[in-house]
């Protein structure tokens, strides 16, 4: 019987010829990831277990990005822990401030994660790398600690939901709108424990940045992983980055799916997810007159160069509404530099927005733009839970970079067409 791409990657890493949903398997891991919030717990457990060395110093990646550059003394201590452990164990892929970026933007950009890999990370948005045709999933700090010792992790093989997106996208409809729309349809536990396989002509025509955005938010539907079959776009993307072997898997034509969902995307409008759940997605034209205080453009969901280009198209030659603070966060140093070269940073600053160094900062209400009581933000991030960006009585509206930029100018939630026309 045929297998899905997810089943094939899991089988290959467990040494089995075939796997079926429900099988419990022990897998070899290609890349392990931790950050300044989750890895300190893993390091402590690693040391308490009496482990002397990590199973492979090339396969472990540590990125201080959440509360880095250090937001306070405690965060500084956590980052220090990561740094010292990395030095002691000669972890090659430790990315210091100045060389770092938000982990899920950084790893694909550096060619650290590749098609066919099995990747685990102590961060729920580790599912992002499925966009490259890898199996990648979020885990907790204990699982990370154990895998740091033996390079293995057990899984229950998930069943798969195939999501076929067809039609032709309207201008200003991006990967972000597609994933918000899908989560709006199936709910925040619509894919719990399962794999989401995205396919169809819409996906084929999307660039890698948009594909990364889609897989990034698979966890917001509860999925174990999101995945897209690698193709020409994937090859193009990794061509200059890959420094080791990789494998491009494809689902068999007779692979078994638990469910197949089809969405016609031709009439889709840009989407906005209302507080306090990503599943509250609505077309931007139906949101109504919602005044806002802050706009955040960035994060592991939408902080890549394509995202900044889209935002800049709308902000060019305009000024941000006087009642709004616009914060732009390039996701990595390389994105930042490219944005500089392309003149995007000028556009943002001329529009009277601020541009920050790469960090998770405002996305999780950490620092660099926390919301006060009663404030409203439009954010290109991935979660609009209560208190996620600050006060429990603040509100977050999730949207694409284009909608966020248009909203910054209008001072209320707005569609890009209102600013730049069709």
């Amino acid at each position, binding site marked *: 019987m045929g297998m899905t791409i997810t089943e094939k990657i899991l089988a290959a890493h467990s040494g089995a010829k075939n796997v079926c949903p429900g099988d419990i398997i022990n897998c070899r891991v290609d890349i392990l990831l931790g950050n300044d*919030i*989750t890895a*300190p*717990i893993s390091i*402590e*457990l690693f040391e*308490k*277990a*009496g482990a002397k060395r990590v199973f492979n110093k090339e396969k472990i990646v540590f990125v201080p990005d*959440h*509360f880095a550059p250090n*937001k*306070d003394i*405690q*965060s500084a201590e*956590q980052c220090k822990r990561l740094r010292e452990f990395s030095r002691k164990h000669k972890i090659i892929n430790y990315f210091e401030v100045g060389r770092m970026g938000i982990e899920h933007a950084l790893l694909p950009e550096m060619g650290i994660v590749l098609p066919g890999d099995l990747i685990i*990370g*102590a*961060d*729920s948005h*580790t599912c992002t790398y499925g966009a490259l045709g890898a199996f990648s999933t*979020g*885990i*907790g*700090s*204990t*699982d990370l*600690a*154990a895998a740091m010792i033996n390079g293995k992790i057990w899984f229950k093989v998930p069943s798969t939901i195939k999501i076929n997106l067809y039609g032709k996208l309207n201008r200003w409809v991006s990967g972000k709108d597609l994933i918000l729309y899908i989560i709006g349809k199936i709910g*925040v*536990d619509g894919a*719990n*424990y399962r794999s989401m396989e995205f396919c169809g002509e819409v996906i084929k025509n999307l660039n890698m940045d948009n594909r990364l955005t889609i897989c990034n938010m698979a966890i917001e539907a*509860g999925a*174990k992983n999101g995945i897209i079959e690698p193709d020409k776009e994937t090859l193009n993307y990794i061509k200059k980055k890959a420094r080791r072997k990789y494998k491009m898997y494809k689902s068999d034509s007779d692979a078994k799916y638990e469910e197949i969902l089809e969405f016609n995307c031709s009439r889709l409008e840009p989407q906005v997810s209302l507080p306090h*759940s990503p599943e509250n997605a609505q077309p931007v034209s139906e949101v109504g007159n919602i005044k806002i205080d802050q706009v955040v453009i960035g994060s592991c969901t939408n902080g890549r160069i394509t995202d900044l280009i889209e935002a800049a198209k709308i902000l060019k030659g305009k000024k941000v509404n006087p009642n709004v603070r616009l914060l732009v966060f390039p996701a990595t140093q390389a994105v930042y530099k490219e944005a500089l070269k392309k003149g995007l940073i000028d556009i943002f600053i001329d529009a009277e927005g601020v541009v920050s160094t790469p960090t998770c900062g405002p996305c*999780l*209400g*950490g620092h660099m733009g926390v919301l006060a009581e009663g404030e409203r933000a439009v954010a290109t991030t991935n*979660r609009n*839970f*209560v*208190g*996620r960006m600050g006060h*429990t009585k603040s509100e977050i509206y999730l949207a694409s970079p284009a909608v966020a930029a248009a909203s910054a100018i209008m001072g209320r939630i707005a569609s890009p067409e209102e600013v730049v026309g069709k």
Partner: protein
Amino acid sequence: MKLRGNVFKYGDNINTDEIIPARYLNTSDPKILGKYCMEDIDRDFTKKVRHGDIIVAGRNFGCGSSREHAPIAIKAAGVSCVIAKSYARIFYRNSINTGLPILECSEAADEAEMADKFEVDLDRGIIKNLTKCKTYKSQPFPKFVQGIIRAGGLMKWVKAGERE
């Protein structure tokens, strides 16, 4: 293992930002995390919760981030067990790994109210609502997972095993 405590009842999709807000993640000290448990959904939780009390919730409990700080905070707050209709995947795994007992039972979750008295037999998966005089059956963990919980988490279990 038998547990007894009062119920703290919550709805569907309780996420990890509600269980322990990100602003407290600049530490992983259980004592500090426990002090802020459930703060963004129930300001009074940590004032009222007593050792052994039980959280009862709806669908998809623990959705959102992968932070292990969530089950750690719940345990450190004194909660003996969580009963929900279903769990988000990473939280489920993290609970076992950190030794927080969790059970799935829709009926018990539906019928429970704030401050009901519960008794839970973890080994057999039996949940009693003593206030409402009702008994429910849920799937107990397999023996080895019960072992992990009893040891206080995966790493402690592995270590204990090594010593034996």
